[in-house]
């Protein structure tokens, strides 16, 4: 298990490195720059600015400078928001985004797994139909539309929760954003769980477990849930990265102070530092999640470890 883990970690390193390079060059090869604002800057000021951010050097040099700094954990300065390091901006925005996405993730995963199990056990009875409908709605309605509808219904008509904005420490401001984020995730999880649970309940080994007289509870808990979780676990990694990126949109819509706010503005202003920094952050999270999922997978399915 330990050897498997170290092998996986090692193989993720070159992927991360190449992905960093791709992002860097795509971003730089695109036309436009951070100082092409509406107001043309005097040539001298512009030249000084460019020199300050190393933009006057050949691209390949800039690339090495960036990589060198990155290896030291330095994401560089923001080019548009004066006096701010990218890492500072990320430190301001990201904890909120992470909290939002993780709460949604945990809530949705638990609800999804439970709902999927209930639906599978009650296959083709009313709890199953209710769940299938809820999943359909969650998976199909795009998050921005869901947000608009929930804001209108629960924020305006019923006035149960605030329709947007953020007051530090007030959980009711997070109810609607988390619902919007969590619903599709819970939907996909429960759909996967339902399908795999139905399959597992029909397997010979569950029949064996029943024939041993273990009682339905133990059969479920020990023999059915673990193998049924395999496809669900393989979705958790991509699921969390969708939640993190989806959180960008949800932050925009509900006016929440996460990293999404900075990212969209930064991209519009060609603030290379922030865009690249944020993208890299997400990429590392995604890679780390995939790694984690692989390890979890190996634990769930012993056969994987020997491949």
């Amino acid at each position, binding site marked *: 298990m330990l050897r498997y883990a170290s092998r996986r970690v090692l193989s993720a390193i070159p992927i991360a490195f190449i992905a960093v390079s791709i992002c860097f060059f795509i971003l730089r090869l695109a036309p436009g720059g951070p100082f092409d604002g509406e107001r043309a800057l005097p040539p001298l000021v512009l030249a000084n600015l460019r020199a300050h951010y190393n933009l006057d050097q050949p691209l390949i040099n800039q690339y090495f400078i960036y990589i060198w700094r990155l290896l030291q954990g330095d994401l560089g300065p923001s080019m548009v928001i004066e006096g701010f390091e990218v890492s500072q901006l990320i430190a301001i925005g990201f904890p909120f985004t992470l909290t939002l996405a993780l709460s949604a993730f945990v809530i949705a995963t638990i609800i999804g797994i439970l709902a999927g199990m209930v639906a599978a056990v009650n296959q083709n009875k009313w709890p199953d139909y209710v769940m299938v409908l809820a999943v359909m709605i969650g998976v199909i309605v795009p998050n921005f539309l869901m947000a608009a509808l929930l804001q209108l219904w629960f924020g305006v008509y019923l006035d149960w929760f605030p329709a947007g904005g953020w007051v530090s420490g007030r959980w009711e401001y997070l109810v609607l954003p988390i619902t919007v984020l969590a619903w599709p995730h819970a939907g996909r999880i429960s759909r996967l769980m339902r399908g795999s649970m139905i399959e597992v309940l029909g*397997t010979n*080994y569950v029949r064996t477990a029943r*024939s*041993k007289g*273990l009682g339905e509870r*133990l059969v479920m808990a020990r023999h059915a849930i673990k193998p049924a979780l395999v496809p669900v676990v393989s979705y958790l990694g991509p699921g969390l990265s969708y939640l993190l990126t989806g959180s960008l949109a949800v932050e925009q819509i509900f006016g929440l102070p996460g990293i999404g706010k900075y990212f969209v503005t930064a991209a519009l202003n060609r603030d290379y530092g922030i865009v690249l920094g944020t993208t890299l952050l997400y990429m590392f999270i995604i890679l780390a999640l995939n790694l984690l999922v692989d390890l979890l997978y190996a634990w769930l*399915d*012993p*056969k994987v470890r020997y491949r």
Partner: protein
Amino acid sequence: MANTVLDVQDLSVTFQLRDSEVDAVREMNFQLTEGETLAVVGESGSGKSQAFLSIMGLLARNGRATGKALMGDVNLVGMDKRRLDEYRGRDIAMIFQDPMTSLNPTLRLRTQLAEVLVRHRGFDRKDAVRTSIEMLERVGIPEPAKRANSYPHELSGGMRQRVMIAMALLCQPKILIADEPTTALDVTVQAQMLDLFKSLTEDFGTALVLITHDLGVVAGVADRMMVMYGGRSVETGSVNDLFYDPRHPYTLGLLHSTPHIAHRAERLDPIRGLPPSLEHLPKGCSFNPRCAFCFDRCLEERPPLEPIGGDRKKACFYEGPLRYEEVA
């Protein structure tokens, strides 16, 4: 007279399909005596597996069983699952056809074995694991303590079936049902497996029900046999009687379509025609379209299973001598 451990009365199994019902087993009656080995023989679809799955409460969701299967004075058929769990695994255990898929791939063998003892004997985990390892040794698994820590995919098919046997016998049940236990295994392993069944069930005094389509298996192990056709038992009796003096044309046909046992015939002859579809059984005797001895009455009436002397029973109207030449 030995004790009866299982008394099956009028057992029927019905499956609800989308827009029809299929009777997989009809009015089955038989007794199982302590320590004996009963072979249940028939083609696929004859209901032999479903009958015993229904006794174990393991029918598919759309299946329903009626009748009685009395173990002492407890009726297992249609019993509440929670009560049934008191008996399953303790007094009556089952081994399935496919050892490759019958063990949980995500759990270590010791977990899967020990949980039976924890559930039914109230052992603590440590004792349960120790007893399980002893049982693994008993079924002939080398290095049982090490193997107990393995996952199923690390074992060969034959080894897995040994594990299944060990698991089923942990509580020394009164009845062991083995559903085609050797079919999925290599021929070389089959014989070993049958010897193992024989010796273990003798040691524990367990009555063995051996569901099979392979008469070679029956000849080696069973005391009595029951032949099933179209969801009904058509002939029962001791293995010797049925092998040397079959009274039902279907039994005769089965014998002649099996190598080595076809004493009277030079060549191997399959039974004519196909096994019946359970949805469209013919009127009268189910076997009539394939029977060489069929006469008018067989087309109209269904022959009941009736005693014909000794402890034999058959369900056939034909009373004359069964000679194989007439079939061929």
